[in-house]
């Protein structure tokens, strides 16, 4: 075991997999020599060579397409899109090609690509360095969508993603790269070193894709969320004294309906939370499915805590980002309903 932040844990996952499997490649803009703008691929080019970890031209569609072609020929590409805000030029390749290759060829061609991409706000990133575009991807049959919330999960899930026979979009909440963040704007950065999930095995291990984690057991309500908001929800439970059960989804597609339903059937109340804008966000899918599966257990309407239906603002970041206050208000409403 070592103390690792999320960047180090992800780097360790890449290192483990590149060591184990000579077909694992890492590439993206600035991902090679420089080791990535967030340092996730640092040292890999030096260790594994120029053709295992390399820089790519600034063309997200080409990066995804290159990965598809390589994967179709048996390699295991882990492509990096520098910010999830910039994944859209590659959207056609992801939606029309990557996600459907297995289906449209009846399994005779597959492209088990992993696309890593930093996402989420809380870093004064403005409109194009803060987005949480996961709902665009959860709507695509044929790809898995994963988002860890801590170093331990990040490594185990990234290794699982690389080993998955299916394409995976792997969102990395960049707000959590260097430490947990509970939504307290202006607070000094906490380090992962003091957090139990900052203890990460150096060797290979995996966490199952499709399995959620109950990070706080409780009886008053269920909060289903993922990424940075897991920490915000934990802080809200702490600050409010409301005994919420908090589920870190970890995998958005396929999401762990069993764990969610068991919890909601126990608590009878539910909040779903996401940083992304509300309308047609992933929370809408969760709320609809929970309503369908847990209708007779529900004692209150399912509440959504989300970003607003606006582009992500710069100056008004802390009025946009769903912090602990918004959680606590929602929790009270759900309790009183």
């Amino acid at each position, binding site marked *: 075991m070592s103390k690792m932040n999320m960047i180090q844990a992800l780097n360790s996952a890449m290192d483990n997999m590149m060591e184990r499997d000579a077909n694992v490649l890492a590439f993206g803009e600035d991902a090679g020599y420089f080791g990535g703008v967030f340092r996730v691929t640092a040292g890999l080019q030096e260790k594994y060579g120029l053709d295992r970890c390399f820089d790519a031209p600034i063309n997200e569609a080409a990066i995804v397409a290159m990965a598809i072609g*390589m994967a179709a*020929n048996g390699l295991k590409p882990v492509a990096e899109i520098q910010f999830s805000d910039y994944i859209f030029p590659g959207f*056609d390749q992801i939606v029309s*090609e990557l996600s459907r290759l297995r*289906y*449209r060829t009846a*399994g005779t*061609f597959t492209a088990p690509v992993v696309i890593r991409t930093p996402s989420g706000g809380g870093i004064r990133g403005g409109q194009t360095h803060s987005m949480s575009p996961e709902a665009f991807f959860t709507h695509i049959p044929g790809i898995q969508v994963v988002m860890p919330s801590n170093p331990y999960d990040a490594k185990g899930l990234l290794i699982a993603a690389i080993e998955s026979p299916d394409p995976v979009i792997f969102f990395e909440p960049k707000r959590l790269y260097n430490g947990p963040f509970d939504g307290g704007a202006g607070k000094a950065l906490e380090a992962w070193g003091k957090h139990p999930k900052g203890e990460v095995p150096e060797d290979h291990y995996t966490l199952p894709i499709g399995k959620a984690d109950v990070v706080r057991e409780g009886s008053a309500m269920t909060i289903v969320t993922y990424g940075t908001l897991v920490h915000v929800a934990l802080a809200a439970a702490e600050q409010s004294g409301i005994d919420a059960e908090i589920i870190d989804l970890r995998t958005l597609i396929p999401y762990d309906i069993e764990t969610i339903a068991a919890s909601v059937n126990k608590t009878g109340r539910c909040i779903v939370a996401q940083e992304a804008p509300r309308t047609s966000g992933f929370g809408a899918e969760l709320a609809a499915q929970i309503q369908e599966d847990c209708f007779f257990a529900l004692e209150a309407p399912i509440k959504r805590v989300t970003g607003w239906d606006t582009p992500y603002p710069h100056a008004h970041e802390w009025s946009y980002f769903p912090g602990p206050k918004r959680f606590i208000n929602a929790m009270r409403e759900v309790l009183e309903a």
Partner: protein
Amino acid sequence: MAHTDPRFHVPAPHVRPGDTPDFSHIEIPPAGTARRPDVSIAGSETLDLALGLVRVLDHNHQAVGEWDPKLEPEIMREGLRHMVLTRVYDERMQKLQRQGKMSFYMKSMGEEAVAVAAAMALEKTDMVFPSYRQQGILFARGRDIVDMMCHCISNSRDNLKGRQLPVHYTWAEGDFFSISGNLTTQFPQAVGYAMACQFKGESRITASWIGDGSSAEGDFHGALVLASTYRAPVILNIVNNQWAISTFQGMAAGASETFALKGIGYGLASLRIDGNDFLAVYAATKWAAERARAGHGATVIESYTYRADAHSTSDDPSGYRPKGEADAWPLGDPVERLKNHLIGLGEWDEERHAALEKELDQLVIASYKEAETFGTLHDGPLSPVQTMFEDVYAEPDWRLRRQRRDLGV
């Protein structure tokens, strides 16, 4: 017609329906005049070839010049057979679509050489990333015709289980990649696949085909950047058949004199070739393949040809171009030209040609009869309906298992 002069330039073809077909503005260099450089030539030094036109068969149907691949008659007869089969198959499938036996079809009339000659010049294990109009590759590689038809009528033997529109073939065993409806997406994928071939130490290369219209897509740029940056062993073909549905090639070419010229800016070897000249397509593909295999990188090839028939069974070209344009096309017909070349060599004759057409027509008819025994789109049997939920993922997750149950299968 426009009421005022346009305020910005909108390119338009020289002629429209009702006009007389006119290709007098097209310059056709004589066969045999293009030089054939060493395959190690720097891409930037191929400018003359990107602006010229590599042609081997002259107006007397003789093979001339440095690009003559000097093929054995047996190989040319094989090529002729694949091209005739492609044409006969297309004709029959179009008829069957008209009879309501298929939802959709796309012919490759006039472009048979582009696919067949290229496929024959490649190794059979080179991975091809075609668009939807290179069915000739399948014949050249010997795919079973019944299998092709079963795909087109989505029956119980369709290797794609009824999931794809007709003509969107996939044939993994034949190293024929999956055809997608999304244009140009396969172009940069072919580069990635080629890089993987190099990475694994394979001698295989890849080739991809797009149309003139599709070269306007962003993936065209992406493919050329990747191919150039990583010096990938790939052949990037632009089939300039003059038409992208109803829009003439100038809509994608803009002010660029040729499509091959676009490759020069990326530092890629670029050739413009007579796409109706079987020997030119064969020779250029061989050259590009040799270049790729020797590690000199990618080649862009513009095949200059003409889409002799409608875009698809859903299209009526009389709405946007003059009738008889295909007959006026100055590069003629690829089947006729190779046939006449072989006749000139004393290696073929009209009687044998007529017999070949008859033989292949009967083969196609018999194949369709056999294909129908595995079902048709309208009357079944189809692939079992529960297979609709398979292959979305390696294993269906709970959502797909539930949805299959909801459908009651």
